[in-house]
């Protein structure tokens, strides 16, 4: 490969993957989690099919516990870009009263994210779903293919993955089987932020530091985004200068204290950081191999 910068090479590889999926699948969809990786993913998708509009819809699995700023951002961006947005919530889980406080992070994630996702994919008969996962995020993700085959039950079999030499992706599947596709596989957290800056990609304001109401709980700083979060004895809400490195359900996402209010400051902070970006995600700390297990069960 000659003459291309690191970001240009990553961009071209991702665009190639998008086109490969659209050329070989019948009903693709893009998972849009509204995080920074998702926003980069969407930007790349729009580039891949330019001047055509996006040839697939976006799917957001709404657990009803996302930050309000994420939902506002989602609706505004979908409108601006004129993309087709599908929002799905697991109504059964909602009726059963599953929530991150009473049910715990594990059950909440399984019912409201993993099961909800499967419902949405089955309902719309999507046979290919793009996700923004990167291999540098987590050890079991480091071993996942770009084209990850899922059984009709959405299960991932880590021991039976197809070899993926060069850029030759085996896109064959049987009826009922589907693919999860990860165009950002080879991107790192630093690449994502540098690309956001280079391309001026809008991201949710929560990534930038601002005074926000937080509660210190179980060693994490939780932003109290609405009054569904009841205070435990001895807890108090205080305004602190915080920002988020990743975004998920607000009760499960730890904030970090920071003064980084601009992209260059965020990039500088990340370079100096001594912790990984998923440290603030409660669901990752349910034990060694917990991500692998969630993925086998159908988590993205």
């Amino acid at each position, binding site marked *: *490969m*000659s*003459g*291309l*910068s*690191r970001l*240009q*090479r990553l*961009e*071209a590889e991702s*665009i*190639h993957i998008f*086109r*490969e999926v*659209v*050329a070989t699948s019948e009903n693709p969809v893009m998972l849009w989690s509204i995080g920074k990786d998702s926003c980069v993913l969407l930007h790349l998708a*729009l*580039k*891949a*099919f*330019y*001047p*055509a*509009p996006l040839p697939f819809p976006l799917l957001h699995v709404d657990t009803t516990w996302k930050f309000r700023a994420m939902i506002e951002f989602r609706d505004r961006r979908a409108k601006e870009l004129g993309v087709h947005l599908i929002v799905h919530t697991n109504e059964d889980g909602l009726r059963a009263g599953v929530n991150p406080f009473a049910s715990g992070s594990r059950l909440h994630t399984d019912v409201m994210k993993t099961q909800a996702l499967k419902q949405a994919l089955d309902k719309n008969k999507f046979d290919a779903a793009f996700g923004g996962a990167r*291999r*540098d995020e*987590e*050890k*079991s*993700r*480091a*071993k996942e293919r770009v084209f990850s085959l899922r059984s009709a039950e959405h299960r991932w079999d*880590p*021991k039976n*993955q*197809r*070899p*993926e*030499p*060069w*850029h*030759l992706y*085996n896109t*064959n*599947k*049987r009826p009922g089987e589907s693919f999860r596709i990860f165009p950002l*596989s*080879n991107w*790192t957290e*630093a690449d994502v932020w540098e690309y956001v800056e280079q391309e001026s990609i809008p991201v949710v304001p929560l990534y930038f530091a601002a005074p926000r109401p937080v509660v210190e709980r179980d060693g994490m700083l939780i932003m109290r985004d609405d009054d569904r979060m009841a205070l435990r004895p001895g807890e108090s809400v205080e305004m602190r200068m915080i920002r988020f490195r990743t975004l998920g359900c607000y009760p499960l996402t730890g904030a970090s204290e920071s003064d980084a209010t601009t992209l260059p400051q965020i990039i500088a902070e990340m370079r100096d*950081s*001594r*912790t*990984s970006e998923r*440290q603030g995600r409660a669901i990752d700390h349910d034990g*060694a*191999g917990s991500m*692998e*297990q969630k993925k086998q069960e159908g988590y993205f």
Partner: protein
Amino acid sequence: MSAALKLPDADADRHTASLLHLVTCGSVDDGKSTLLGRLLFDSHAVLDDQLTALDRDSKRFGTQGEARDFALLVDGLSAEREQGITIDVAYRYFSTPNRSFILADAPGHEQYTRNMATGASKADLAIILIDARKGVLPQTRRHSYIVSMLGVRHVVLAVNKMDLIGFAPDVYRRIVADYRDAASSLGFGSVVAIPICAREGDNIVTHSDRTPWYEGPALLEHLETVSIEPPEDATKGFRFPVQYVNRPTLDFRGYAGTVANGVIYAHQPVIALPGGQRSRIDRIVTADGDIATAVAGQAVTLTLTDEIDISRGDVIVPADDPLAAGTEVTARLLWMAEAPHSPGQSLQIKLGTATANARVAGVRHAIDIHSFQPRPAATLAMNEIGVARIVFDRPLVTADYATDRELGALVLVDRMTNQTVALGVVESAPPRLRLDETQIHVRPDKVHRVIGYAGSTKRAVFLQRMMGRLLRGLVLFGIVVWLSGNWTLASVVGLADVVLGPLLNSAVASAWRHWRHARSHTELLGAGH
């Protein structure tokens, strides 16, 4: 002069030098994952919360007693932790101030050779690990062969566990000599040997005090500075496998894909293979605006000046540098499925962006992985390498892997199970076939370029034109005879009309082409500044 080479990005040199794809291969238990964990740790790619998890995991699964087991940083699957081996290829990312690295950590066990080959297919450099106590093993030879077959030109021979042989220089030197001997026929561009102890960090980042007799670089130092020559010649004719036809409206018909080789210039005359339709590049479209040139690796959308029928799997190439298409190739295959190849097996070939039904028409020979010599074989079993003839049900545009890493690489998929059963590299693209036999485009000689092949539309048009021209010549001849009565003069006028017209046309067309080419070249250089 150098301006032309710097297209299209003035910073190209700095950026290209800054990303290196690595693959690590070694036998079971020679400390490969430990080495990687150590590289990540020493380049500060391991963060505090990961280190906490590592210390917790080391106590639970570790093979190093109470000490940190760096292998657990990379062995991410539960089965791997339990068995203490690497099963699947893992990709790791780290960078130093001088370079970024994408590292494919490939398993050593023979059972997982296919995963190792996958990791090697994209690599610029291979780190081959050797356990200093064991020396060159059959696995070392097998890995070296695969790495070489997949076109990796540079090797680092990391002789690990030097502490267990007391850092003895003579043992190290004997291993290096053995390896150089074993790899002499594999054609590597460079083999750099380094004595290391991954567990304790000797010669990983800094030179170790325990190997005063070793004068070469430490591993990371070498990886940061090794120069990888560009694999391709930018002046070579471009190859553009069409990936997706983008047709959002009746007014726009674009061919989306990634440039496989060379440089595409707007307005360049092109030919679409295997159909053989000719046209000219109209626009090179990207979301950031149209561009004048596109280089290898860039994902773009081309529009042509003519409406011709091109679909996914076709290859657009320069009109003056086409390739042959054919229905068979000879390829060096690595069989990856558990079931050996069976003669009637119904396969699919994936090559470039094309897919066709295929079968292995005959295994020519297998390769003895110890001697690297051919040996007779009727079939290929899992992890075996052999040379075979592959035939497909429609013509594909292929090239030798040695000259074209994109159109020379293939995978075979079993049509019944959908498993990827083999990967391969094209050894000899098809002989140039006769067009009337196969309907496949080959580069015509000068005469056929003018008169077309028998039965072709071009030939029909040519004959029709010739008839018209002869008739006109005859009429002119008649008129001159009637007017002047001079038969000689009439013959000269008639003949001149028949012959001079086409010659003049061709001369004018040629002059026009040269002028256009010179002009677009000048524009290009202007754009580069």
